[in-house]
């Protein structure tokens, strides 16, 4: 298309003389190509395709009625400064000798292991479903519905995430992320109470943690 009517360079040489009074209209396209690629490079480098990802959070509307959770299903996690995570099962025992409270971190062998161990009911129920989906015997919508039902079941683990006054935002996000990874759908995000702070202080004192 660009080489419009060049008249032919080779084989038709003889015929050219007869009809070619027209000048060959060959346009040098190099500058245009240069410009084209310059613009292309510029827009490619400035475009950002990936939108940031989000964690959806729906905090409960504040009410005064409290729901009691079965001790065996409750896991309380207290986030503190320096990436420290304290946790205890069931109810807080305010007896310092009970060794109710424990300390862990955000590594794979840390809080995730604790949650996964406690969340075995959901994980066991989910395992066959995962298999079926992987072998493509189950559509995503069916899977999601079934998963939601299992995660919301009354035997599912309930995690209470508490934060003290020096907790960092990054730890809260990490914890919400763990909920996602460990298939925990039932969790609440609240402030640490005074007895918990005292027990943590006590724990730190006992184990010489600053």
């Amino acid at each position, binding site marked *: 298309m660009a080489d419009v009517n060049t008249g032919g360079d080779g084989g038709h040489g003889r015929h050219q003389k007869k009809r070619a009074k027209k000048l060959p209209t060959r346009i040098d396209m190099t500058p245009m190509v240069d410009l084209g690629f310059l613009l292309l490079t510029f827009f490619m480098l400035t475009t950002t395709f990936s939108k940031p*990802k989000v964690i959806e959070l729906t905090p409960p509307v504040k009410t005064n009625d409290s729901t009691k959770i079965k001790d065996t299903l409750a896991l309380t996690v207290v986030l503190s400064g320096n990436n420290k995570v304290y946790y205890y099962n069931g109810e807080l025992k305010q007896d310092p000798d009970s060794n109710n409270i424990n300390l862990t971190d955000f590594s794979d062998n840390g809080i995730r292991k604790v949650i996964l161990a406690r969340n075995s009911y959901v994980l066991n129920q989910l395992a066959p479903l995962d298999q079926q989906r992987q072998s493509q015997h189950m559509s995503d919508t069916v899977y999601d519905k079934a998963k939601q039902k299992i995660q919301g079941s009354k035997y599912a683990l309930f995690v209470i995430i508490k*934060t003290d006054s020096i907790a960092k935002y990054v730890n809260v996000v990490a914890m919400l992320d763990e909920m996602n990874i460990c298939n925990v759908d039932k969790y609440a995000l609240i402030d640490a109470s005074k007895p918990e702070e005292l027990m943590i202080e006590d724990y730190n004192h006992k184990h010489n943690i600053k």
Partner: protein
Amino acid sequence: MPKVKLPRSSPSIDMTPMVDLAFLLVTFFMLTTKFRPEEAVSVTIPFSVSQTKLPDNVTTISIDSSGRVFYDMDGKDTRIQLIQKISDNYSAQLGGKLSDQDIMRFSVMGAFGVPYAQLKQYIEANESERKTLNAQTKGIPIDSLPHDELADWVQYGYNLSLSDWYDKKAKNPEMLPPRFAVKADGNAKYEVVKKVIDICQKAGIQHFDLITSMKMKKN
């Protein structure tokens, strides 16, 4: 038999398809690019494995590592209405009503984090002046004493974008309701984030999107 003479000509390649392709790509990138105003505040967002994308039509509240709060809302028309409301109701704090020119400037401005008292100055500032103001500001006040200014922005902004959504939904039923995103620095104290979320909850907002960047899931 005479030898067949090979025609000597410069090897010319037809570049047309390449040019076509190049310009096709240029057009594509030109149309998909959306230029953003420079970020008023630098925030290092935490990682997560979440796959949910940030929706459109979103109000973003940024919190930097020292706990300063910045506000940003999508939509030029709603921004104009918002600043007009603020200008009418808080002219005393602003030091007089804002001019039409200020309102137009505000409508195309990105995130900001100045109290009412400095807002006029910030709107009228040029780019480099804004940079210094952004570095000096303490963010939008979130304490109820003397006055919780973020609550005003959130309340008015939410109401306006809601009514805007109702209007637009009549024409375009797939339009999503306005969302609130919290873009906080990982090192920000959770207390500040919680306070911001509380303020938003009081304004009637129930869902929040915590902006994170993607991390590959480890198996």
